[in-house]
């Protein structure tokens, strides 16, 4: 599906969708959004790019196999759950928060890192599945 319109549009849509996915990720916790939805949107950005420019170009853009994001994300989520156990001897997954909110991002706590982990895992899983299917098709 190499049309000029889609290809030109995808050049702008890729960064836009990625920024939007980060916005959705940060919006999570109290409002609709979060790691899962954000991850899906980020994956859609790459899938759209692959539609317009071919799978090989998207892979070149990513530089590494998306499957690698799975253990990284899982590891991050795991560590965010483990932090209270190691630091304060609180039960696993207890939320730790910085006292003051950060500008732009808002309150930062271990839940954010858990969500970033989910975000990475979702991107990794979705892209691995879609890339594998389109390679074998």
């Amino acid at each position, binding site marked *: 599906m190499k049309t000029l319109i889609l290809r030109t549009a995808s050049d702008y849509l890729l960064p836009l969708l990625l920024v939007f996915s980060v916005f959705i990720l940060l919006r999570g916790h109290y409002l609709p959004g979060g790691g899962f939805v954000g991850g899906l949107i980020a994956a859609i950005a790459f899938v759209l790019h692959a539609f317009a420019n071919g799978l090989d170009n998207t892979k070149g853009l990513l530089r590494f196999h998306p499957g690698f994001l799975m253990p990284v994300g899982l590891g991050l989520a795991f560590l965010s759950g483990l932090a209270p156990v190691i630091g304060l001897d609180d*039960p696993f997954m207890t*939320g730790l928060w910085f006292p003051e909110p950060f500008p732009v991002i808002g309150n930062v706590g271990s839940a954010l890192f858990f969500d970033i982990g989910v975000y990475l895992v979702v991107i990794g899983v979705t892209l691995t599945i879609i890339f594998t299917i389109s390679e074998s098709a």
Partner: protein
Amino acid sequence: MTQQIILYPLLLQMLLAIILMFFWRKINAQRIISMFGSLVHLAVSITVFAYIWNNGTQTVQAGSWEAPFGITFIADTFSATMVLLTSIAGLAVSIFSSGSVIGDRLRFGYFPIFHFLLLGLTGAFLTGDIFNLYVWFEIIIISSFVLITIGGEKAQLEGAVKYFTLNFLASMIFLTAIAVLYGLTGSLNMADLANKVAAVENRALVEITAILFLIGFGIKSAIFPLYFWLPASYHTPPSAVSAIFGGLLTKVGVYALIRVFTLIFVDDVFLDQILLVLAIFTLFSGALGALVQNNIRKVFSYLIICHIGYMIIGLGMFTEVAIAGAIFYLVHDIVVKTNLFMISGLIYRIKGSNSMRALGGFYANYPKLSLLMFIPLFSLVGIPPLSGFWPKISLITASFESGSYWSLAAIIFASFITLVVIAKLWAEVFWKEAQEIPVRPKFRYFHAIKNIKRVQIIVPIVFLSLVSLYVGFGAEHIQTLSARIASELMDNQQYIDAVLNTQTPE
């Protein structure tokens, strides 16, 4: 740090799975990490078990959310024992896998998925929240789908479809049951449910929910009318996979049944009667199924079904002695069934076949190995003083006391048929004259593989045989343990107090 000691086996498995994913393509590194990690897991599980044995039931409220609202993790003696058994079987199968599973399968993430499976099992044993239990069950079945299909042979996929369909159905029924229960009581915490279900006016609905749970867990643990997926699928994947499936997957269903029917749905004569009837039929049908099979692994599959009956019958009689018998049987069965499937894998490696008719002359050619295999085979039958004998005493005593002579007959009948089946297997495979089996050109026979691999195949069998021997000869210890678990299970108030009264940790 000791407050959360019960979570460590869980966290360790998760850490292992994540580390193994980083080494996706390096299967030799995966082998070493998996074996070493399983060893550490065993050490941690023993520590947790000792801690629980000395200090009694422990709870952790995950995320510091208080008991009826958050997810509770709880380790009583039963959970700690199951975690310990998981780590024993996990260590054995981890070593066995690195010796026996071929590289082409390992390259598709065999070890990470294997540890996710163990993570799911450990989680299911430790959780105190019924919805969380469902989540762990999902982790278990998703991992097991991958393990059962890895390699993608035709027979494997055919078995996997049957396995997938019925287990998925079981999950849906389980989820429906949770939904109904939540609608009735507005709670998911098992201890809280125990209090609230007892107070529900609409007993008919409670009973229906209990039946839904029974069907959901019944499919997973392969009890009488719901077991058809098991013999259709367990002989298709590599024997390392069958070993962990046969040893632990059906037992997690039994664990859930015992937990739910001793904690939430108690004092219900109707349910106990149903459990008893199902158990008796399970014993009969499993035993008769095993009698007519020729493939060794199919024989063992039917024996799994048959012996699930012993545990369910113990639960159905619902006296302290009977439950102690069921727990003892559970301990014995996990070790022996894991070992039996590894043995079938060893026989397959040596001869290239698992057909009883084609095999023969094992005792003449491999006398030492035959003696080794004698231990789990006849532990299963329960020749005294081997491990299968002791739990049956408790079960038979209990059925005498409660006067249910049908159960007594079923227990004795199933033991007898097990004896016949194993004797037939022994005569065919070990004593019969060796047969000519056509040599398979591309098959990697046992005598052709490297020494280290051979050690990796033999050592776990020796290890589990030693554990079986300990269960048999140290029966007094296991009996004490089972009696303590049974007394804890019969008095569910202890469990409820442990969960609901720990809001103020000192």
